[in-house]
């Protein structure tokens, strides 16, 4: 089969930009939430865990619908934004929000597992050496948990890249602005443009393999960082 010619490459750019920004957001928020949660226990925290992990188990269309309720013109955040003279639904930021929300639980889970695996004696040693909690986290916990967090980042990126349902609900299909690769594929198939659909599928396949390769590399080779590599 000849390589189908793609006339519009914007979905690739939009997908990568969206996933990149969404992953950065989930990385920061996910690690912060995991670190915070590490220090708090109790039934309220279990409930919070449930809320944070909801996007993982809910159908993406349901997540998208909730986001629409929140960010829409009648929604609490939407109205606030409207007062500031802006709106996010059916715009590029909406693709980022959708991707960030659905990929957040993966980041949160892996970051938490990675932080929990850090031997608490290292943290205690750091404290007796005079380090404030922020420094304990940044210079001891984070570096030791980093391989796991990195794996979570790659998983989040992959999840953000594949996001379809929630994105369609809050961002729609605006070519050149909100149409990501999965959305481009869906609408290409719907328009009977199989050549375009196949082309995008091939591109997605390549990206996914690259991500899996990176994941393998980081968890197997680099994950055993230099201080444990022999």
């Amino acid at each position, binding site marked *: 089969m000849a390589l189908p010619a793609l006339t519009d490459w914007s979905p690739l750019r939009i997908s990568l930009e969206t996933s990149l920004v969404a992953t950065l957001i989930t990385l920061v928020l996910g690690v912060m939430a995991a670190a915070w949660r590490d220090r708090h226990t109790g039934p309220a925290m279990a409930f919070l865990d449930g809320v944070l992990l909801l996007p993982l188990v809910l159908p993406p269309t349901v997540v998208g619908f909730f986001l629409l309720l929140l960010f829409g013109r009648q929604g609490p955040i939407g109205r606030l934004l409207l007062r500031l003279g802006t709106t996010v639904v059916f715009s590029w930021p909406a693709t980022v929000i959708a991707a960030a929300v659905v990929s957040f639980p993966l980041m949160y889970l892996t970051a938490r597992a990675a932080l929990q695996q850090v*031997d608490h004696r290292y943290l*205690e040693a750091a404290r*007796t050496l*005079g*380090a404030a909690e922020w*420094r304990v986290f940044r210079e001891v916990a984070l570096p030791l948990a980093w391989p796991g967090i990195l794996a979570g980042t790659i998983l989040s990126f992959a999840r953000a890249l594949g996001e379809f349902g929630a994105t369609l609900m809050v961002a729609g299909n605006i070519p050149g602005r909100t149409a990501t690769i999965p959305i481009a594929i869906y609408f290409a198939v719907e328009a009977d443009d199989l050549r375009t659909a196949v082309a995008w599928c091939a591109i997605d396949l390549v990206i996914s393999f690259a991500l899996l390769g990176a994941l393998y590399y980081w968890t197997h080779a680099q994950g055993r960082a230099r*201080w*444990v590599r*022999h």
Partner: protein
Amino acid sequence: MALEIDISKKLTDLTLKVSFTSGSGPLGILGPSGAGKTMLLRCIAGLERPDYGRIVLEGRTLFDSDRDVQVPARARRIGMLFQNYALFPHRTVEENIAFGIDGMPRADIAQRVNTWLQRTHAEGVRRRYPHELSGGEQQRAALARALCIDPDTLLLDEPLSALDSHLRSQMEAQLQETFTTYRRPVLMVTHNIEEAYRLGTELLVLSHGRIAASGAKEEIFRHPPSLEVAQLTGCKNFSRARAISDHIVEAIDWGCRLRLARPLPASTAHVGIRAHHIDFEEASGTTAVGENVFPCQLVRSSETPFRVTLYLRLIRNSEDLGDGVSPHDLQAEVYKEKWQRFRDRPMPWHVRLSPEFLFPLPG
């Protein structure tokens, strides 16, 4: 230069309740595992919060439940040597040591790190990661890291237990060297009797969360205040006892009367003697029975490279030479050279329980 502690903390299976003051010089904290030794250190370091009490270091109140004072671990200036050293695996030795002296000019940090690398004889491994170090090198690095913050007290949790025996004496010398130059309170937790004795000048025996004995080590070993302390300090020979007069005791389990050098307290319930204090009448024929000398026979023996432990059964007046399967009364430890001299002598042998080595134990 003192560390004052008076705390209690309820743990799952015991209550830690201790009160003592430690001056400069090493205090060995001896006790079986599960006695609360490590928890005590963690409370002092600020890693655990006691339920009640006070901790005062060099006049600084670190913890006071009445005034709701709880200084966080980072502000206590306490050097803690963890059981497995807890060196940061992602940092080199010098980076580990420098961790505690954040926030001063780079050159000063480097100089201080160098000083401590030299003092602990760890210069050779400064750029290595912890996993590349031997146990001894890890301990040197951990010691340097703990001392580099110029702590007001040094806490060591089983400092030698992670080391192979050949490294142990080497590191013991290192610790001794450190203790002589460091003139502030040092608390060293161990379950090893000999380690505690060799490294501590004072001893504190902890049992079930309570202080069973404290004071000069020689005194505790020579005159244990209780049966429990005698056992915890490694004494193997006990007999129930009843005071007959000021210096004479009836050893019920051993079936004999003994003279003690020290006057007996009225509350004497047991009498004990350490295994290596039991002596043998080598010159004797068969009639050498004198004061504190008793005929006995060997039940079994167990050899270590240089010493022999002899399990002995005393021969009571009313009994014959015995059946050879009865449990032993005494456990004696002698050097092999000595044992060679009398091992082939005919039974019965004669043990001497010297009056100065026998100690009474109150009930």
